[in-house]
């Protein structure tokens, strides 16, 4: 129990950082109704861009902003592939993600890993400070950061433009009939989403003290896990948009806490990705199974009604 308490701040920090990523996934998966696999690449792109710029002596806030911009560029490419080239969304994301692997290596000077030491550079966030009661504590910073991101998105999706993006995801036919350019909105949503994912990657790389070309592997599944956990736990009580986003962030935190507990129970770390995938698969399947069961019962009723 004592060791769990010791590990908790680290898990919460990581969860909060991944929460930003999960909000990005929420925008594509739930708002736009597009499964975007670009994120596995853009997370690492964000990390790589930010770390290399910090190593070059740039202010870490500007490096973070650059990561956001590079992530948006990645989302833009996926959006163009999907809307202007007619490639299915999933495949568009995979294509961008694959090319990002090469791009990430180029950004990182052809190395798979680039360290950034908190002793040498003024990092925004570092795992070194997780247990300190100070302004540098990553939990504090991430709570503020998440609050800013959620507020900004709440504002944006309440504007005329934001409403039109939501309509694009909810019913593209209706959106076009109401004069909304659905293609440009899909591109915009993908850019926003990947910008946030890359920002999360930039924070994550600083937190763990290095950027790694593989840091985004399976990111989409972790993001989905956070979205689904948030919905399952808070779906009934959190109705408004900003609470839904908050639920996604808390979902990511819960995911990392559970992960920590599972690890402490002696599970092999190599099995983690598989376990995550199984959990996400089960939760995605539940609504489908529920419908199927409900349909069966209804069918039976109709038969007995006829007899």
């Amino acid at each position, binding site marked *: 129990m004592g060791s769990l308490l010791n590990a908790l701040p680290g898990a919460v920090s990581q969860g909060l950082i991944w929460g930003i990523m999960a909000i990005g996934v929420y925008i594509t998966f739930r708002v736009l109704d597009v499964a975007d696999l670009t994120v596995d690449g853009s997370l690492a792109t964000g990390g790589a861009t930010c770390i290399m710029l910090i190593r070059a002596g740039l202010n870490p806030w500007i490096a973070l902003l650059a990561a956001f911009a590079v992530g948006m560029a990645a989302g833009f490419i996926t959006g163009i592939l999907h809307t202007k080239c007619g490639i299915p969304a999933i495949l568009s994301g995979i294509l961008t993600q694959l090319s990002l692997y090469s791009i990430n290596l180029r950004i990182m000077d052809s190395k798979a890993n680039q360290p950034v030491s908190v002793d040498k550079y003024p990092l925004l966030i570092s795992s070194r400070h997780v247990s300190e009661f100070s302004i540098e504590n990553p939990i504090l910073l991430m709570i503020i950061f998440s609050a800013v991101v959620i507020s900004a998105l709440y504002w944006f999706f309440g*504007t*005329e433009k934001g*409403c039109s993006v939501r309509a694009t995801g909810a019913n593209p036919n209706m*959106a076009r009939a109401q004069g909304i350019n659905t293609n440009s909105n899909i591109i915009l949503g993908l850019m926003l989403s990947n910008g946030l994912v890359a920002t999360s990657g930039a924070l994550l790389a600083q937190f763990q003290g290095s950027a790694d070309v593989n840091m985004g592997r399976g990111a989409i599944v972790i993001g989905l896990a956070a979205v689904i956990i948030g919905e399952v736990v808070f779906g009934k009580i959190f109705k408004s948009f900003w609470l839904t986003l908050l639920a996604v962030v808390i979902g990511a935190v819960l995911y990392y806490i559970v992960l920590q507990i599972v690890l402490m129970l002696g599970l092999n770390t190599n099995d983690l990705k598989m376990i995550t995938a199984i959990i996400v698969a089960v939760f995605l399947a539940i609504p489908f199974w529920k419908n199927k069961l409900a349909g069966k019962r209804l069918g039976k009723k109709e038969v007995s009604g006829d007899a």
Partner: protein
Amino acid sequence: MLELINVNKTFNIGTANEKKALDNLCLKLKDGDFVTVIGGNGAGKSTMLNAIAGTFRIDSGSIILDGKDITNLPEHKRAAFLGRVFQDPQMGTAPSMMIEENLALAARRGQKRGLSWGITATERAGYRELLESFGLGLEDRMTTKVGILSGGQRQALTLLMATLKKPQFLLLDEHTAALDPKTAEKVLDLSEEIVQRDHLTTLMITHNMKDAIRHGNRLIMMDEGHIVLDISEDEKKNLTVADLLQKFSMASGHEETNDKLLLS
């Protein structure tokens, strides 16, 4: 006002499912015309409406609105002057958004959507009044998600959305076909009311011949991708369903289409 000149459209070119949906279609509408459109399955009625709305690009021909060639204008841009209601009640509204949000989206049809708030308090009050005036019982459910409304309610809402910002042109694509008879009549009456109130130029597809005769000031009948019958207001006044069927088989030159027409 609206003019279709030799419009052609073939779907699935070069495959076994190749289908010529519009065949040298010509149509000219005057300002304020309320035209009902009938015809059997596959006659090209919906295809004609979709061609006007810009859902797809036509193969050849041109579409002129108020002297402006809109043949190559994308769908979302044409929406600036078009109001549309679809056959499927699911198609015209965003299910995961509230009633008031749907209305607010429709109120901005044809406008640039910027970063000001998506719905204002004055708007909200206006929508409430509007809904109240139509007696749909929706005025107290403004923040209800549209997805849980009945098909009839959704279709009525779609109609309000299509005409909230007065369109130059209203396209009704069998918009009551998916509703039960009573609701269908209600929605149709509501359509008539709005069209009369705003003097909207309207094209309405229906499979109900009585409705086609009763509503509007002109009736056209389509077969095999073009118009085979065009009945003016005076002629339409004394028309019966039997007349219409007879006229149709004479115009199209084949008897069996009668059944197709009646059954569809």
